[in-house]
């Protein structure tokens, strides 16, 4: 299983039946593939649809139905289309249960930076600031390390996305829960030991006595049943 799939599958287990979920572009968008179609989860694309479906079969694309990245999508039965005021009204108003976003940095206060690298990458924040401010739960799905640099740091050096503490960070090495008393290591990736995680993390981690592996027997998720309910 490659790192992205590992992360996506683990994120999918955080999604409960009936939730409204927004998935960011890139890695987060892979999560949809691991949430069972029967779970009654609705995905939001913030450009204007509740009930985002899979990519359409070739030749059945419609220019009026795309996701926030501009890719062609479908709509599930019971879907609804909305304008941007309603879309962000849902997000800021607390009606979105979960947002899954990529990250550039997460720090010990649980702050996320994911929209700007001054002088290098200045694309604009798009919907990220509203999503992190307003969503019920914010899950950051990212590689633990980027080009040899730890992304989990004592304090973000990049511009923050919001003041809100994110709820969970899921990487290719670990599951970490930001809490009022710091970053708590909750799970480690299969075959990864604590020293590897410590070495790849610049921030201080609170490490409980037992840190189980992400995919563990008897857990809510097992290989071969990736479509089981979370």
């Amino acid at each position, binding site marked *: 299983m490659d790192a992205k799939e590992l992360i996506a599958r683990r994120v999918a287990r955080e999604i409960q039946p009936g939730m409204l979920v927004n998935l960011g572009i890139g890695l987060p968008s892979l999560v949809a593939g691991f949430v069972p179609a029967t779970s009654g989860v609705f995905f939001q*694309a*913030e*450009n*204007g*649809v509740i009930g985002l479906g899979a990519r359409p079969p070739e030749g059945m694309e*419609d*220019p*009026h*139905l*795309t*996701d*926030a*990245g*501009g890719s062609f999508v479908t*709509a599930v039965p019971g879907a609804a*289309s*909305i*304008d*941007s*005021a309603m879309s*962000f*009204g849902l*997000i*800021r108003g607390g009606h979105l249960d979960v947002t899954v976003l990529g990250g550039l940095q997460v720090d010990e206060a649980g702050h996320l930076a994911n929209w*700007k690298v001054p002088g290098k*990458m*200045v*694309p*604009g*924040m*798009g*919907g*990220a*600031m*509203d999503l992190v*401010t*307003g969503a019920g739960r914010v899950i950051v799905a990212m590689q633990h390390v980027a080009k040899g640099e730890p992304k989990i740091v004592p304090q973000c050096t990049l*511009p*923050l*996305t*919001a*003041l809100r503490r994110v709820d969970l960070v899921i990487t290719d090495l670990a599951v970490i829960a930001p809490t009022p008393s710091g970053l708590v290591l909750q799970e480690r990736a299969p075959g990864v030991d604590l020293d590897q995680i410590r070495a790849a993390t610049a921030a201080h981690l609170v490490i409980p006595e037992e840190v189980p592996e992400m995919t563990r027997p008897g857990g809510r998720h097992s290989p071969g049943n990736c479509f089981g309910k979370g």
Partner: protein
Amino acid sequence: MKATLKAEAAAAMIPDGASLMIGGFMGVSSPERLIDAIVARGTRDLTVIANDTAMPGRGIGKLISAGAVSRVIASHIGLNPETRAGMIAGEIDCELVPQGTLIERIRAGGVGLGGVLTPTGLGTEVEDGKQKIEVQGRTYLLETPLRADFSLLGARQADYVGNLCYLLTAHNFNPMMALAGATVIAEPEAIVPVGVIPPISVKTLGILVDHLLRALLGKGC
């Protein structure tokens, strides 16, 4: 009932230096023929208020490539390297606004509100220079209304009253922009007789639309 006009005639109404709200999200449901006509006319020094600047060759991206735009207020420009290059070169002044704040500022301008209080942006660069107001024990940023000289809308269907419908994710910024432009020009893909669009299906009221672009019939215009 509104007379329809050609894209060239609509573009001719827009002077150099005008501010434009342009509907669309990554080019989906932007008024492409109207944009082409503005580019062809060579209008300059435009302010564009929109979610994004699409990409080169599409929607607002064509205005950027043509050098028609000197100022952008948007939530995202990341998929258009020309906007970024223009910003770095100092040719395009870019104000980046969180998407939910941008649409609320446009709505506020359109519905006569003096502003809205949002938690989005608090504690980030976005709060610079803004008033903070406490309500019921929580702190918010005061975000002010946006209006424009023109709103340019892309729609699926219109009737001759000017009522507009959109399809699926093609609503995006169009319905709120219809409220916030001093002059509103709509480019529908099709126009149907009055009475054909059911009253509950109208998403932009005809009374908000000043000019309607003639729909394309087959290949002709």
